[in-house]
């Protein structure tokens, strides 16, 4: 991991800073938010930004800034959890498949192919209508749908690395297969996985908003950026700021994650694709 290369990517650095700022603001929401994000005031509906409410109020009189901060907490946490889960599951399964081959490989590949060929939104919708959609069930569902991509990468990496000399040497030394796999192969396979993970995080935000649009997002009144953007649909013309703020937040975060991923890829010496 060539840090110097990373810090020479202006887009990546700027993006990382933005992400950090967003994350800090979001997780410090209880201290930063001027109002209770769920405090309804039917007498101050849809106020434009300015005055007592810096980002205005929504269609129930709730302060948009406060909701944005708490929503950021939820959305970013969701992205984090899904990425962590999917990476853990995908890497393990993919590595096992690549390393042991034959039946393990067949089984894992079957699952990956099947899951990859089904539309994510469709599956997530079905799951969303069965389970009560709170942060954790949503995270599990999205993770279950996203691990195949990481598994594929892990598997491909392990396949190529398996034949390298040091792996041969480790095996010649009589080390157990699991040891070879986890201590020697995986650390070298990490690069494309990390990149894929950042991109996955970005995807999660977008999928969450699409799910909200289709009606299967976070349960009210829990705010999430995707949910806020979805609720703002009825008011695009009356109160455009209700869509602009969560929309910008999502766009900014997703872009930033992409730029950081690009910079990481450059720093780790990987090739595109």
């Amino acid at each position: 991991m060539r840090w110097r290369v990373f810090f020479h990517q202006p887009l990546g650095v700027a993006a990382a800073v933005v992400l950090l700022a967003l994350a800090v603001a979001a997780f410090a929401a209880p201290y930063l938010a001027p109002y209770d994000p769920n405090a309804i005031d039917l007498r101050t509906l849809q106020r434009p930004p300015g005055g007592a409410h810096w980002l205005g109020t929504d269609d129930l009189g709730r302060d948009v800034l406060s909701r944005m901060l708490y929503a950021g907490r939820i959305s970013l946490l969701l992205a984090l959890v899904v990425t962590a889960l999917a990476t853990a599951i995908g890497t393990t399964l993919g590595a096992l498949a690549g390393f042991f081959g034959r039946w393990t490989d067949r089984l894992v590949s079957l699952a990956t192919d099947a899951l990859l060929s089904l539309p994510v939104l469709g599956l997530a919708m079905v799951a969303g209508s069965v389970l009560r959609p709170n942060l954790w069930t949503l995270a599990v569902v999205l993770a279950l749908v996203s691990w195949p991509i990481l598994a594929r990468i892990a598997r491909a990496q392990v396949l190529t690395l398996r034949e390298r000399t040091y792996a041969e040497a480790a095996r010649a030394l009589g080390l157990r297969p699991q040891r070879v796999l986890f201590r020697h192969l995986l650390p070298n396979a990490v690069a494309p996985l990390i990149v894929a993970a950042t991109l996955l995080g970005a995807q999660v935000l977008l999928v969450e908003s699409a799910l909200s649009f289709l009606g299967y997002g976070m349960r009210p009144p829990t705010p999430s950026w995707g949910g806020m953007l979805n609720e703002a649909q009825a008011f695009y013309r009356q109160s455009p700021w209700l869509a602009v703020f969560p929309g910008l937040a999502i766009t900014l975060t997703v872009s930033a994650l992409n730029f950081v991923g690009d910079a990481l890829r450059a720093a780790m010496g990987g090739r595109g694709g």
Partner: protein
Amino acid sequence: MPRLALISVLLFGVVHLPKGGPADVYAADPSATPEAIERMKEIWGLDQPLHVQYLRWVTRLVQGDWGRSYVERRPAIEVVADRLGPTLRLTGAALLVGLMAGVGLGVLAGVSRSPGVQHAVRVIAVLGMSVPTFWSGAIVLLVFSSYLRWIPAGGVGTIGGEATLLDALWHLAAPALVLGSVYVAQWMRYVQAGLESVADDDFVRTARAKGLSRARALLRHGLPNVLLPLVTVLGLELPRLLSGAMVTEVVFSWPGIGRLLHGSLVTRDYPVVLGTLIVAGVAVLIVNLATDLLYGVLDPRVRYA
């Protein structure tokens, strides 16, 4: 064969998981009576245990009978077939847009020496995929259809008008652009990285020695090399494209299978849900096969492997 069976069981189980069935959609109406709803379930065989329903469905399926839509009262195959065309047009056009813009931007970034251009291109491409499509689609409608009146308000064609190619393209433009913008960043990255990776190859060096400009050399020798991985990735992108189409089709009133899947999930129209998922899965299979074949044709190295 067993793979298909497993997938069919999974699909069937997953689709039937959510509470409520096609009869229960009627039940919320004030005039519906519980006895009538129960009777509907009996007639439709929905009161049978799940494995019985599955067996019935799968035996009919292998004979080519996908069942009847509970909503449209006609064969599910017809329901899906009616809406397949529009989605194919939309996803095809979106892929084209994404490819052209992606390759174009990728070439620009890969060939150019200026970091400014490279950054600008990357920012544009990434922005395109960072905006939730239901929002960007709505903004496109608001600005370009409502205010500027440059594009229609959705739909596949002017109702009551002539079904001309031009009319169809005019309606296709906006949704294809919105859906395609999501993929621009990806293609751009592949192309740019691909070009950069071949910049030092012998082919290119020889070409430059012969007097070709850096750009020409890269393009003539680098581009074919770069397009190969694109082909393989096409198959991987299709499911995501279908998911994205779901949202785009709702926003632009596009009568495709994405919207059909969404609508039939809401009404629990099981035969149509299953039919749509099958079609989607088969489409992905076909595209993957085709890209594998294409890859074999295009890459001489693979043939000798």
